[in-house]
């Protein structure tokens, strides 16, 4: 069988003495939206931070299209095509929305294609176009998330990783952002979505993994996960 587009095998990682991930295996196929669900402290954010190079793994492999990524620097992982939208958006305050978006293209040569991509992001998120010259800190939560997603696609990623898409946002904003994710996905970008709001995650994703205390405990298509008794009990609150 051909190797999947993005493959994580036996990944272990943590902070100093504290081990957070205990041999995580996940796969993302080309063009797929995969979600990662789990409770607080399960290690979802640590997994993304390890995949993007902010935290160095202690064991295991990360491969995209056959290229080994585990242990590389952030900038090398990013230029290989893995972009990370961090939890809490993390925009550059005091910089305008446009400059924040352009920061996403930091590693690219500044040429016409960057302006075209900027145009595309502005078309996808008209609110950002309206506020292009405003300080990014003055945006609402939903707009900030748009800006963060826009910034990450400015690097032309093949895989987009999003940490807590819906955190602290109004339901309407989450809906809008979900639609744009589907649009980005249709343009050929695979997506790994970390989400506490399990229903939102399973609505968007084709497949899902359940992470619990640093281990993958379940992997199935979204419809199956939605019906799985363990998931319903633990994360949705229905019995």
């Amino acid at each position, binding site marked *: 069988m051909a190797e999947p587009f993005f493959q994580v095998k036996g990944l272990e990682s943590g902070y100093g003495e504290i081990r957070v991930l205990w041999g995580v295996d996940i796969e993302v196929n080309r063009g797929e939206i995969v979600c990662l669900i789990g409770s607080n402290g399960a290690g979802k954010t640590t997994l993304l931070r390890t995949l*993007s*190079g*902010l935290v160095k793994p202690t064991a295991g492999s990360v491969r995209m299209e056959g290229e080994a990524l585990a242990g590389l620097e952030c900038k090398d992982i990013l230029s290989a095509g893995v972009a990370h939208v*961090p939890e809490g958006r*993390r925009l550059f*305050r005091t*910089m305008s929305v446009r400059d924040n978006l352009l920061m996403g293209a*930091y*590693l690219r040569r500044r040429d016409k294609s960057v302006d075209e991509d900027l145009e595309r992001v502005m078309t996808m998120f008209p609110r950002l176009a309206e506020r292009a010259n405003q300080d990014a800190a003055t945006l609402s939560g939903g707009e900030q998330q748009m800006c963060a997603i826009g910034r990450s696609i400015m690097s032309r990623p093949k895989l987009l990783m999003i940490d807590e898409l819906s955190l602290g946002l109004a339901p309407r904003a989450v809906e809008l952002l979900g639609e744009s994710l589907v649009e980005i996905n249709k343009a050929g970008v695979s997506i790994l979505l970390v989400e506490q709001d399990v229903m939102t995650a399973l609505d968007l994703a084709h497949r899902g993994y359940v992470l619990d205390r640093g281990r993958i405990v379940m992997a199935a298509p979204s419809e199956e996960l939605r019906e799985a008794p363990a998931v319903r009990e633990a994360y949705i609150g229905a019995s």
Partner: protein
Amino acid sequence: MTVRPIYVLAALLLVSLLPLVGDNYVLRLGTMFAMYAVLAQSWNIIGGYAGYPSFATAAFFGLGAYAGAILQGNGLPMPLAWLAAGIVAGLFAALMGAAILHLKGHYFAIASLVLAEVLLEVTTSWTSLTGGGMGLNLPVIRMSVDAQAQLFFWAMLGLAVLAFLMSWYVSASRIGFALRCIRQNEDASSMVGVNTTFYKVVAFVLSALFVGSAGALYASWVFYIEPPDVYSVLTSVKPIVMVMLGGAGTVAGPVIGAAAFLVMEEVVWRNFLSIHSAVLGLLIVALIFFLPNGVLGFIRKRKRTGADHGKETAA
């Protein structure tokens, strides 16, 4: 920017005419100003642009002073010794920076503070090289007192101008851009592909180069150095106060802050001889309290509110 860097450069060049009008006391003040300007502008690179609260200035200064003194003692011509001292401080900063710049906030501050303490201990114990606690005398220069005063004044001012040009260049370049991103949000900078480790080390080295040379110049100027003098913790603290006074992360701010600090220090010293440290301390607290963004921030704010006011009356 409210104070254009070019004005500051012009002011620095004007100061270079000081020997025409002043006596040696004024020249001594001028040399102190230039030295403070070097220290403040250097700290501004790591502390202002990159936002890393470094207390390593004294380490670079003392290391430069001793490197310069030892090299001069071994027969290296004075200007070359100054240059070499800057390079020694820069190399030291590169090595230490790579080791401690992964620390953030208070942890980085403490680690950088320790650098000077360690160098102080090493210098004091390594008697065969440094003269230890007895200090080190520098070769006497055969020149009149007046000529010496002018020489060191111009040399120090020249160094201040170089530091200024460096700071100006950094603020407009890719390095300055990367450093400001790091100050805003280091994680996000990494995620968009800024090589944060590299740029932080570059900033640390840039904050050391000119300070090392200034230390060597200082050693040549005063003829005699001892460890507690050149590794004094005040050498680390003063530049921070100057930059805070002037405006952190700006090109003109550190120079303005250095001048303001020198004036304050001199006035307080003259009028409150026995309690000058206490009065200076209180003044600093008061200034930081009332001018949190420095003189430049204050001017900018005044201008902005003035403009708003103008709009209101127009409407």
